[in-house]
């Protein structure tokens, strides 16, 4: 997991909120579609922090902060490589509004940027730590077809079932 908090440039908190609203409406603009190593990612634009009364002091966040947290299952460098090559334009649209963002022209520079900003976790937990994102997605695909196979096994002839099962294996061989 990576948690990053960046400082936004003037007016970019507003612009980013607008961009995110647009990508909620048109998900393809902002999703991480082709990246099969990300379980979940969230972004929050912060211009103030919740206040709970004394002894908490009110913080001045200036132009705002962008909080990014991602849960992923890949070694870090290939993960950043994938960011650069597969979703570079989407990443740029979001992060170009943060100070210090080096762009997506260099894996080394972007990995260095993320590395210098990543806040170490104090405690982390996963309900399935042994399973990567691809494995989970593959398993869910297998599970989807499984129900139809069980139904077919009870109802069709062995020859017909064999054809269905072979089709399943051919489609899902990479998922097993």
């Amino acid at each position, binding site marked *: 997991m990576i948690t990053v908090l960046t400082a936004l440039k003037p007016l970019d908190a507003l612009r980013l909120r607008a961009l995110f609203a647009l990508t909620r409406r048109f998900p393809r603009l902002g999703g991480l579609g082709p990246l099969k190593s990300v379980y979940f990612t969230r972004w929050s634009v912060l211009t103030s922090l919740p206040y709970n009364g004394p002894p908490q002091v009110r913080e001045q966040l200036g132009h705002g902060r962008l909080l990014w947290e991602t849960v992923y299952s890949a070694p870090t460098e290939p993960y950043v490589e994938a960011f650069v090559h597969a979703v570079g334009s989407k990443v740029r649209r979001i992060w170009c509004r943060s100070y210090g963002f080096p762009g997506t022209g260099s894996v080394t520079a972007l990995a260095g940027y993320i590395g210098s900003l990543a806040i170490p976790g104090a405690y982390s937990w996963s309900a399935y730590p042994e399973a990567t994102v691809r494995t989970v997605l593959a398993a869910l695909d297998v599970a989807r077809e499984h129900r139809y196979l069980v139904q077919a096994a009870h109802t069709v002839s062995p020859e017909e079932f064999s054809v269905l099962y072979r089709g399943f294996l051919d489609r899902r*061989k990479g998922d097993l």
Partner: protein
Amino acid sequence: MGTALDLADVQGNILNSYGSGFGHCVHLLLHADTPQAARQCLRQVEGRVTRAVRWSRTHRPRTTLNVGITYSGFERLGLRRSLLDRFPEAFRQGPSKRAAALGDTGLSSPARWEEPLGAGRVHLLLTVCAQTTDDLSDARQRLREEVGAIDGLTVDAEQETHELQHRREHFGFADGFSQPEIEGVDRPSGHRPAFDSGVGVPLPRGRWRPIKLGEFLLGHPDEDGQVEHEPDPDLVRNGTYVVYRKLRQDVLRFEESLTAAADRTGLSRELVAAKIMGRWRDGTPLATEARRGDPGDLTEYAIEQPANDFRYLPDDRDGHTCPVGAHIRRANPRDALDFGGTLTDSGALTARHRIIRRGMPYEEPPGSGSDDRGLLFVCYQADIARQYETVQQDWCNDGDTFGLGDDPDYLFGRTGSSGKLAIPMPDGRPRFVEVPADLVVTRGTEYLFAPGMAALRKLAQEAFG
């Protein structure tokens, strides 16, 4: 910015191999009790280290010499702490500390490695390659005497390696093909030109380009446009990192596993072997020759220069020709990492993870036909973690990058883990071959740095202290 390539400053065998004429090698693993002993050794040999300049037809040396230095070797040489601390983490930690992530567990764990490998005792590695066993023996004797004459310097171990006939390794596969095409480096005559070679970076529309020099030599731009200078530009320029890894091969069990897999799948042994490797045992890639009516005995020859101009996409995305989990497809995915077709320049995701391989088979004792045999795997790269370790750890020991879950390469199964190789078939019913455990066992690993010639001279003269 990087500097122009000066081959006279680069050790030999890195950018271009010495060639099959030098099929006999010995590696001397040295321990120095004092910085003086280590420096004296470097002073003794540095003028004889073979450089990367091309030999003339009439002047080939009888033997060659290369030098490597471990991290503990740099410590022993007295490098100042501010430089030592800026070496890359993988090099500083060494392979023993990184063993678990590299799959060196169980029989391959560092606790079982042959001394002195991985224990921090090896400081210097001297490698001699020779055209004949007599020349090898003479050169080795000379080096032993020179080492013996230096107070505080000892040969902790020696490792001999010899090429097998027809470029084989002990599992019977012709080996050593598909070395990277490097920008600015002339290929030996007889090799295909760069644009047609298939060993560079795949480009759209069937073209190829060479890989940036900085992927293999420090001080030059790499594929990311970076020039690596750490920990010191003068120390690392024209140098490279070396992975030295002794791998014992259980040949009998490998052949038995082929027989079992053939029985289980109904496929021929040679086809199963080809599907495991991605090449027929004579070196021909499945990608260029998917079927053979009767493969015959593939042990009696090797293809001199197999057709390497192939890629996996778009026609073989699912591995019907070369299985997705086959060894060569894992070790060099070429254009196959394209996120399901969304990336047009998919070669970019492989280009930063290439290695130059210079390994050679060993047998103990040499020529005895004993069961104690395997491969002394040697590779060169500018970044051990990004290149060698990514290939070993993420691509060969694990299948997730390719959508294969935790299925390892057939050759790298370990006791306590399981896995399979899926072989798609034309009849639509894939075959599955279970991955055996411990066909290849790690007997020890060292990480070293092979300096450029100028750096070697400076190290011998107590610079960088």
